[in-house]
């Protein structure tokens, strides 16, 4: 290669270096204009899929009032286009039935003037159950308010104020089940406990003109400090009961001492109560770890474990567990048939409540699909049956005012 060529090459390298330096500085750190047009993929192509649940109608009722006025909102009987509202008014707690189309009160019943707590409106809104403290007694009593009659029935009274009771309505709102809670603060946890079934269809007038209700008690074997779950099916004909506890090596036989080494032996018992037949059937255990039963349906028993939803098929005979999907951070609601699973999530920095649905075809879940979304600061699911799911939510306004909303999503 000639000297001239070599020289030319070197000069070229130098020139190129200079260009690169300048180019890198200019291109590297200077902001440039950019225009891009991007098409989003089809919803189906995104793999989001469709759950198969279609919301066919939405009805809602909004009550705007003082944040402390509203006690609870619920939906009336399906198709009745009514909303139920419990409010604290001058005379005390008032039950109102409201026409959601006209927003007018159809009926108004005085419920109670005592301090009440743990209020639950039965699905369909005919009954309201709550705990109230009688004037001269320290311990509360469990009361059911019959809205249509405007009457109360005291279901039971407790002698010890330390006793804690829980209760739950069946999906059809006709049966109420109460039981002694079994947490560590429960009175005498080792003693046997019972599940009581109140059938609202057995309400009748007694000889004194008062109302009575038939109750059926099912005695369960107490087994120490335990967590108890009572889950009735949709019509309350079957009730799944689970007692799950950390055994202190059978606290019934050996005296518990704090100095003793706590044996972390997990144990659980499962029963099926059939109130009409007055039967209790012991069920096989299906989990080797603590679980959180969610719903007892025709499909089987749903429970949550480590952020996942699982289904126990045939819990009454030969239980088999199937893992479905993750539900961590979601509120799970399942219809009585067990084939519609509704999930409530809080999104957009907890400013929006989104309802998603998953359908179970056989035992295979479909894709999760958003069904409803609204801006709420708080809310939950009131009920979920085989044709509709009822949600309630609220948002705070100025001057301690609040918007309470109840929605029925028919599907």
């Amino acid at each position, binding site marked *: 290669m000639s000297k001239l060529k070599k020289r030319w090459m070197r000069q070229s390298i130098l020139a190129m270096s200079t260009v690169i330096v300048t180019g890198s500085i200019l291109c*590297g*750190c200077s902001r*440039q204009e950019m*225009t*891009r047009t991007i098409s989003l993929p089809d919803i189906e192509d995104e793999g989001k899929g469709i759950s198969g649940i279609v919301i066919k109608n939405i009805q809602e009722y909004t009550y705007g009032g003082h944040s402390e006025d509203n006690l609870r909102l619920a939906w009336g009987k399906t198709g009745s286009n009514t909303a139920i509202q419990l409010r604290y008014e001058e005379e005390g707690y008032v039950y109102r039935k409201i026409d959601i189309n006209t927003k007018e009160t159809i009926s108004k019943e005085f419920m109670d003037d005592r301090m009440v707590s743990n209020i639950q409106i039965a699905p369909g809104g005919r009954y309201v159950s709550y705990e109230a403290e009688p004037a001269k007694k320290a311990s509360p009593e469990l009361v059911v308010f019959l809205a249509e009659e405007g009457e109360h029935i005291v279901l039971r009274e407790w002698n010890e104020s330390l006793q804690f009771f829980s209760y739950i309505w069946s999906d059809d709102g006709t049966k109420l089940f109460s039981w002694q809670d079994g947490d560590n603060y429960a009175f005498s946890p080792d003693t046997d406990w019972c599940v009581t079934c109140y059938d609202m269809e057995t309400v009748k007038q007694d000889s004194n003109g008062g109302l009575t209700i038939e109750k059926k008690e099912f005695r369960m074997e107490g087994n120490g400090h335990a967590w108890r779950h009572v889950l009735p099916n949709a019509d309350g004909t079957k009730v799944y009961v689970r007692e799950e506890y950390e055994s202190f090596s059978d606290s019934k036989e050996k005296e518990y001492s704090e100095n003793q080494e706590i044996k972390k032996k997990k144990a659980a018992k499962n029963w099926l109560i059939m109130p009409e037949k007055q039967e209790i059937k012991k069920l096989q255990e299906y989990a080797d770890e603590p679980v959180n039963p969610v719903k007892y349906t025709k499909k089987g028993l749903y429970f949550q474990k480590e952020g996942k939803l699982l289904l126990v098929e045939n819990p009454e005979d030969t239980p088999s567990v199937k893992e479905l999907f993750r539900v961590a951070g979601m509120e799970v609601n399942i219809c009585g048939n067990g084939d519609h699973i509704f999930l409530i999530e809080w999104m957009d920095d907890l400013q929006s409540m989104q309802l998603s649905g998953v359908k179970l075809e056989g035992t295979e879940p479909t894709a999760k699909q958003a069904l409803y*979304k609204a801006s709420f600061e708080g809310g939950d699911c009131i009920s979920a049956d085989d044709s509709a799911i009822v949600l309630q939510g609220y948002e705070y306004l100025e001057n301690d005012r609040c918007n309470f909303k109840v929605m029925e999503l028919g599907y």
Partner: protein
Amino acid sequence: MYQKKIKFVNSILFRMSLWVLGVGIGGILLITCFVRFQMRYNIEKQITEEMQQIRDNTLLYIHQILLLNNDIVGEEGFEKSVRAVKQQLRSVGYREAAYYNLDGELLEQSGNRILPGEKREDFEKAMELNSTFTLYCRKDSQCEVYFTMPVEIIGKRIGYISYYFDYGEQYRREWNTFERTFWITAVIFALICLITWIMLWRMVSSIRNLSRVTSEISLRLSEGQFDHAAAGQLTFNGRKDEIGELSLNFTRMLDVAEEQFQRIQDDNSRIRNLLNSRQEFYNNVTHELKTPLTTISGYAQLMEKNGQEDRELFYKGTRHILGESTRLYRMVIQLLEMQEEKGTKDKKVLNLTALIVNVADTMQIKAKRYNSRIVPEGIETDYYVKGREDKLRQVFINLVDNAIKYGEPGETIRLIAEAKKDKVCVSVVNRGQGIENKDLENIFEPFFRTDKELSRELGSTGLGLSISRKIVKEHGGNIEADSTPGEETVFMVSFPGIGSEVNV
């Protein structure tokens, strides 16, 4: 100047610097491109995800509103509920929006921004295909997104919605991150380049130093000098790496080269001397041969012309011819002797003391002619050497003969035998005019004579001392001469001694 520039351009430092710079800049460029690409990808990905969410939410809200208002899921229902939709979407934060029917006619608009749909690509694509957004990023860090989506409820398209979103803040944030990354990378690369360059410079400076020293040395070598002082300029700085090793090896190589150079110089000098002496020898031989031949030839011619008539000339000529031819013969014999290579196989242990006494006795007759006498000394001890008796006798006879011929007549010639350390020395000492210092070193050279005329008169061939030296050397000994002109001259011959009492 041009040569200097060429040298600079060809230098390792320049080329490596260019490489380091190139790699550095290339690295920055690569990282910059990657970060830019990543930033763009992130922005697009994030906006795409958000648009998907907005689209899903919008469809959900519109469906809810249609259901709540009991409107038909269709274009008519959408047009009827568009105000409620606008209100709902505003309440969830989608403030800048425009609502269109299926023909692309504007139904409602919220916010201050006018969104003329028909001129935008995203709108056209949304009408033809699917939800599309256009991202405009400007140099002033403005980043706007125009998003148009078809409203499809339960698989039925009922209208279009265009949204405007300002992503300026996010874009600026991304750019700031990018700029920080760029400058940090640039600084890191600059530091790496600088450190690499310094290391390179250190390395190359040693090589350059080496190069300079070799250049200086080769320059001096071309002048026939070996400049070892230049090698001292090599600075190792205690380096133990390859450069240090190279410098060390180079210094060692210089030492060896210097030694070899010196040897070559010596050899050169010796060869030169040899060539000179050979030439001189040749000149001497031809001269020495020519002289008697001239005499012989001269007398032969004279005798041819006048020899028959002039008997005196005839006899004189005959005598000269005989004398010169005898000397010529002797010279030839001696020259042959000088060329002879005698091995050591004929050497025997002989009594040097007895040999000296014998030589002294033999030469007494000739000494008497010069009124001199020979006195052997140190003969009470027998000294033994290994050698050829006839040759050693020839050496001592030659030395004693020279002492007689060139010494002061009437003086005593001492023949001294003595032991010095592990050597046996025999010195021939005489008094006379002596030898000048300047001649002492040449007297053993062939045909060297201090007084040529005198020597020739005395019948000397000029080869005696040379032959003596050759014989002594062949016996592993040494011959030296020392003289104080006008006083004493000593010729000392030394041999490796094998003891003073040997059982022969």
